[in-house]
């Protein structure tokens, strides 16, 4: 029951955030220099006088501002983000078609980063002056400092061009024939480099974070108790320490979903991955404002949803928070 109220509160808060993003979009349309109708139509689209007139009517641009906001919220909450004249399609359908690849890329990168990151962090914490620990230090500084698109380009040059192990770009080989399994393998093959590029930044942070929090947890009383009881070392690390040490990683990973999506924009552009990022890039070059603003909304929506998911996950990992509710 308590969990249910907590969930409802979280969802209500999430809904308010969604509304706030829509209001921001509305403000951006009106704050941008020029005629709002032009912004809605997109500068380079086929914004003829007729189209502009129909947009003015549809969005009530001749009415007072607060009524316009009402019209805008009404439209967008029904999933109508306008028409992209550049792609000649509705913005919503355009975006929905691109969300899948982005989520695939982002979750793969995230799982890779969390999985390998915590593993490296745990190994490093066993011997704080060992090779792995030094590797974690170097990795975390290099991973932070290298521009993500640059890492991607370097990997392309090395692993797709000099040693052609992986494809240079795109998500699948269109000439490939064969069953579903071969198609999946093909997508996985294309996924390796982009996911690795995106993941390595976060891998760097998570391995360092895990090491720090493992070292802290390993110094605590209950670990000494466990060791004194004769719990095998493997179990001390795996069960007693890791479960507590992984909490900060979960928190940070949840908070960082926005920056992972930001990273995905660059990685997708480098690898020509057909997701939201390349769509954002192309529509910005085309000054296709409705699509750009729609992407801003949907990417924020993904972050909001992921925050709620992290919150729930956090309660699963840490029973103390469950009872505190």
């Amino acid at each position, binding site marked *: 029951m308590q969990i249910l109220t907590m969930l409802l509160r979280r969802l209500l808060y999430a809904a308010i*955030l969604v509304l*706030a*993003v829509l209001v*921001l979009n509305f403000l*951006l349309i009106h*704050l*941008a*220099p020029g005629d709002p109708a032009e*912004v809605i139509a997109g500068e380079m689209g086929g914004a003829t006088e007729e189209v502009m007139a129909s947009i003015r009517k549809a969005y009530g641009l001749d009415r007072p501002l607060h009524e316009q906001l009402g019209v805008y919220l009404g439209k967008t909450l029904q999933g109508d983000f306008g028409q992209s004249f550049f792609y000649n399609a509705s913005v919503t359908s355009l975006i929905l078609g691109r969300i899948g690849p982005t989520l695939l890329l982002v979750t793969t990168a995230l799982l890779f980063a969390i999985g390998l990151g915590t593993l490296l962090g745990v190994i490093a914490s066993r011997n*704080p002056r060992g090779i792995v620990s030094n590797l974690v230090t170097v990795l975390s*500084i*290099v991973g*932070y*400092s*290298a*521009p*993500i*698109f*640059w890492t991607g*380009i*370097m990997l*392309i*040059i090395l692993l797709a*061009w000099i040693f052609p192990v992986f494809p*240079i770009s795109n998500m699948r080989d269109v000439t490939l024939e064969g069953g579903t399994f071969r198609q999946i393998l093909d997508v996985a093959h294309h996924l390796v480099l982009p996911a690795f590029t995106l993941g390595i930044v976060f891998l760097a942070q998570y391995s360092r974070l895990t090491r720090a929090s493992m070292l802290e947890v390993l110094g605590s009383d209950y670990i000494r108790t466990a060791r004194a009881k004769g719990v095998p070392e493997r179990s001390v690390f795996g069960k007693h320490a890791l479960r507590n040490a992984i909490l900060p990683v979960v928190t940070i990973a949840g*908070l960082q979903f*926005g*920056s992972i*999506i*930001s*990273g995905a*924009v*660059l990685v997708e*552009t480098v690898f020509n991955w057909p997701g939201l990022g390349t769509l*954002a*890039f192309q529509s*910005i*070059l085309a*000054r296709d*404002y409705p699509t*750009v*603003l729609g*992407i*801003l909304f949907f*990417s*924020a929506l993904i*972050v*909001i949803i992921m*925050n709620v998911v992290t919150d729930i996950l956090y309660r699963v990992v840490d029973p103390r928070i469950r009872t505190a509710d």
Partner: protein
Amino acid sequence: MAQSDSTDAMIQGGIPKAEHPVSEAWRMFQRNTAAMFGLVLLGFLVLITLIGPLVYSVDPFEIVWAPLTPPGQEATAPLGTDYLGRDILAGLIHGGVATLAVGLAAAFITVTIGLTVGALAGFYLGLVDDILMRVTEFFQVLPALMFAMVLVTLFSSSLTVVAIAIGLVSWPPTARLARAEFLRIRNLEYVSAARSVGAKNPRIIWRVILPNALPPLIVSATLTIGTAILFEAGLSFLGLSDPNTYSWGYMIGSGRDNILDAWWAVTLPGGMIFITVLAVSLIGDGLNDAFNPKLRER
């Protein structure tokens, strides 16, 4: 009597004077090889950026040789040329100013907004805190790069707008950090002491709490410079930075379409950005260790 004698003697002999925190931190910083390396590296880069253009005065926009000449083949362009035939070496030397300036300006805006929001929220708490933290959370929900892309597209891609956009999307982490520090310090005894002698809130915030909250904020500000430089590079890579100013990011953006024909046109400026951010983050790490006595033994 005897006691005062011994006190006098101690004063004569010199009670070990407490070291000023800044000089203590500097001493710790100097001991840190990696951090000193970062400092020297950054000094070197700043030197190239400021003095280089005087020594190597080739205009980076000027076409000097055949397009896509690889490095080491032609003395006119020792590091090769880009797709238009512009000198890469000239670009590396001249392009640093804009990149560093935008990074510094954006970091300044980030810290100013973040510090103000965090300080007010952490000091006043209550309704102020609630409102400011909801605003902060709202900004954290927007993917920063996406938001900055939208701002730059809708308004303009001049370097000023780019710096403001980066600042506007990057301040929430700084605000959270500042809030946590203010929250921790506001209930300490010396703050109550300042209040009891009649210090007003603004004075307590800026003169009493802020100086004590500075160490972690300085570290975060240093790292913010690195992040801002990466951000500018990212926007440039997407072709969203000022096309009239030559920067490392601009080189990357204009070389993007020819990665496989001219790897040097993209990887060299990218390498400069990498080295710069590396230097900044080594310094940030060193400052963190220097300010944090607890970590010193590790």
